[in-house]
């Protein structure tokens, strides 16, 4: 697999717009994805993630703007785009009535790999995606996670330069999800460019080099996971106490803390370093206060997501 010149983006989107019957789904989206990197498009349901993927995969035409994939314009050179991409969508794009091997050979035949090479490639992918045991049984009898792996294997038959994964792990159990992540990491290691849409923040954190947050058809933030986490308020320690009396005593020790009477807890600002933790515990011990429960919170993408998406925060987020 040839890694492209990193200066040439594998995917380039400028001022892209799309609306369905007067409802704007994509509103002036501009985005570049460097060759060989993973971009996660993060957003709530209805943010326009799938529409974006469908435009880039030549399944929909945009109303305005420009989109290029592997150097080909999606509107004027769709065949060029199609020869460079692989798509795994939300709907399972496998043939239930065929076996796993037959599905892969079907794709190989459509790509004109030749009979021998097609079969060899199918066997290789069955092995690699851990599908060999079920290879010659009908896909209709397979579990969700196995089908999704086959779906991805079919996407990889033609060794695409750019792969679109539209919510690849939605509906999968944690084990299957992790197995799929491992597969995606391997693709990336080989130099494949990946555009991933997800509403699982952990998935974006695990897989993506950069994350773009899409909300209401607009990119409201873009950066690495670390950069995005810096956009939201820092971490804190959460202390829970046995009763309101103890809570009041503890609150007196920490004037900057936020008090929550309902859950009998106190949020003490500070990062998760041991220094901060020791200082807090020392102060509690000095005041002879018993803590029922202590937990450390570092800002995660959940905080970023909640802070950036939703209409209430739209103004803050886009500024």
């Amino acid at each position, binding site marked *: 697999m040839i890694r*492209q010149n990193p200066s040439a983006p594998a995917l380039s989107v400028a001022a892209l717009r799309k609306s*369905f019957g007067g409802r704007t789904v994509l509103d002036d989206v501009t985005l570049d994805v460097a060759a060989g990197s993973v971009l996660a498009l993060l957003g709530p349901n209805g943010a326009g993630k799938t529409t974006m993927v469908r435009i880039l995969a*030549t399944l929909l035409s945009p109303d305005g703007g420009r989109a290029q994939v592997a150097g080909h314009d999606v509107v004027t050179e769709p*065949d060029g785009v*199609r020869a460079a991409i692989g798509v795994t969508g*939300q709907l399972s*794009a496998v043939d239930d009535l065929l076996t796993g091997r037959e599905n892969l050979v079907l794709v190989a035949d*459509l790509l004109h790999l030749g009979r021998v090479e097609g079969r060899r490639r199918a066997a290789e992918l069955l092995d690699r995606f851990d599908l060999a045991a079920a290879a010659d049984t009908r896909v209709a009898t397979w579990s969700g996670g196995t089908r999704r792996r086959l779906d991805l294997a079919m996407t990889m038959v033609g060794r695409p330069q750019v792969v679109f994964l539209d919510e690849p792990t939605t509906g999968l159990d944690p084990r299957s999800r992790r197995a799929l992540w491992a597969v995606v990491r391997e693709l990336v290691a080989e130099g494949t460019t990946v555009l991933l849409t997800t509403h699982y923040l952990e998935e974006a954190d695990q897989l993506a080099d950069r994350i773009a947050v899409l909300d209401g058809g607009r990119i409201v933030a873009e950066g690495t996971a670390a950069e995005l986490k810096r956009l939201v308020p820092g971490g804190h320690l959460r202390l829970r106490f046995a009763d309101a009396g103890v809570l009041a005593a503890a609150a007196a020790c920490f004037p900057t803390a936020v008090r929550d009477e309902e859950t009998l807890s106190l949020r003490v600002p500070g990062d998760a370093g041991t220094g901060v933790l020791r200082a807090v515990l020392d102060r509690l011990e000095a005041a002879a206060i018993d803590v029922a429960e202590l937990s450390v919170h570092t800002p995660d993408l959940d905080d970023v997501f909640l802070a950036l998406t939703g209409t209430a925060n739209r103004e803050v987020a886009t500024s």
Partner: protein
Amino acid sequence: MSTAIPTLPPTRTVGRTLADSATMLRRNLRHALRYPAMTASSVLVPVIILLLFVGVLGDTLRAGLGTRASGGGYIGYVTPGIVLISVAASCVATSVAVCVDVTGGIVDRFRTMPIARSAVLTGHVLGSVIQTAVSLVLVTAVAVLLGFRPAGNPLRWLGAVGLLLLLAFALTWLAVLIGLSSRNPESASNTPLIIQLLPFVSSAFVPADAMPAGVRWFAEYQPFTELIEATRALLLGTAVGHHVVASVAWCLVIALAGFLGSRAVFGRPRAA
């Protein structure tokens, strides 16, 4: 390292289109072989109707037909109609298969691949025509077992076969259009029932002039009557009149409408 885009194989050459259509045809035939239930029902339904009309109603209906019953009695009159019903019955399998393809994700996969797009539909059409031909042979074989004896010469029989395959081709395009336009496989299996029921209001079982005025008018002018009369004349060796020309015209009109409609619906992107 070069960043030049490799030259891509052209996707719209005739050779490529044929190869992709053949791949799709193999896929559809494999479906049919692995799940013969759909094909079986398009054989069983006409056979049951044949048994019912010949075995239960045959004597009474023959008495009503008078001199028009030939070629082994009522079975001679009714077999051409039954054969047409088996062609119409194949529509259900086609439209369900097309609908399952487009409502699932597999057609989206094909659309994002550098293949001849038309291959998806031509694969379905060719596969269905082959399946229909198989059920035609089986239904005709049952009719022969029950006493159906075609008259005339083999050349005319060949003409009947050609006409039936043309009808299969036309109805398949219509079924593809229904499958593409249906929201789910359930409605894709219900809509073709209209096509399946049409032969019952034709001269398949009794001559149109035996029907009440309104029904008779419909029966006389609907395409199945022309096709049944043409097939009957070709198989039984009677005068074909204008029926063959009218049948071919009907088939061409139906095929063209189905093809153009399908192409328009298939080319239109489905909203996410």
